[in-house]
């Protein structure tokens, strides 16, 4: 895709019905944004508890796979809430996002984060349980999601 095709696509997103509808309202963006933040807190909690266990900081009496299994459902719930609120937020200001470096950093890290969590971290934890590699997985996952959250917040500053 050529760069000018991408920007055209982003203009198309911004002109979408949902995008226009949110921009036309004073309250809608802030309200959706608040729920986006709540979703982030739910996902963040699952990440913190799972990854801190992988790094060996908490709940050491329980196996890593048990802790990750317990947090998985809430990770997915938080994630769904984030996508459901994040997409409309994006549609309402797609062109601003296109020119925001924070937005692209977030999207790249988010893609890596999702792939990493579902295809590397979770399957490996179920297989290996303990060890240096598992601690490293926890640390990487924690850092990745921290960058996603922080760069996401940063979109609002640009």
């Amino acid at each position, binding site marked *: 895709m050529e760069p000018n095709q991408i920007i055209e696509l982003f203009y198309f997103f911004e002109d979408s019905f949902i995008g226009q509808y949110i921009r036309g309202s004073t309250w809608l963006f802030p309200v959706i944004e608040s729920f986006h933040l709540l979703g982030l*807190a739910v996902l963040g909690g699952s990440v913190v508890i799972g990854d801190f266990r992988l790094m060996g900081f908490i709940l050491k009496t329980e196996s890593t796979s048990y802790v990750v299994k317990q947090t998985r459902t809430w990770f997915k719930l938080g994630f769904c809430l984030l996508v459901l609120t994040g997409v409309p937020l994006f549609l309402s200001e797609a062109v601003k996002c296109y020119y925001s470096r924070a937005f692209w950093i977030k999207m790249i890290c988010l893609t890596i984060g999702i792939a990493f969590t579902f295809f590397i971290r979770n399957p490996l934890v179920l297989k290996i349980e303990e060890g240096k590699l598992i601690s490293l997985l926890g640390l990487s996952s924690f850092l990745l999601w921290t960058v996603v959250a922080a760069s996401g917040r940063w979109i609002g500053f640009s």
Partner: protein
Amino acid sequence: MLNLAEWLATTQWSIALHESLYWYPWIESSHVLFICFFFGTLLFVDLRLTGKVFTNLSISEMNKGILPLTVVGFCLMSLTGLLLFYAIPVRNYQNIFFRIKILLIIIAGVNALFFHKRMSKEAKKWDKDSFIPNSMKVSAIASLFIWSLVIISGRMIAYNWFDCDRQPQPEWINFLTSCVVDYQLYEGIDGT
């Protein structure tokens, strides 16, 4: 109180924070991260009480394992929150969402106080019987609900719909935000 906020605003560090290009966004972003830390870990402590997660662990084990993280999250969240307030003290003090948020935090605090008083007394018994009274479950859900409202109202502080420098506002809004409004100034504009 307004005098105090006005005095805070004149202090050197407040002005520096307010005008800094990078410090303010960094503090704001870390505030969000610590909210995740605090609320996210509290979520699991409260969900354990309702029997939704970590049922392998007793209530005491769960609290011992997770609550330290929640406390650390709370401290860092409060510290960054205080800095954010200190950067723009007058505006925050007179912001309606800030006031709602403080009120909600007090309610959440009272709830937590009763919650932990009872828990420290009876947790051992619940561990043994693997039974949790319904009132504690209600308190756990209420805590999540109130803190959610705290997060929502906190996010709303950024919006200036009801700020003192945006007049005219309904009288009850100016009352709730303790805005000092020079109505004579606006009489001319309205033509009344």
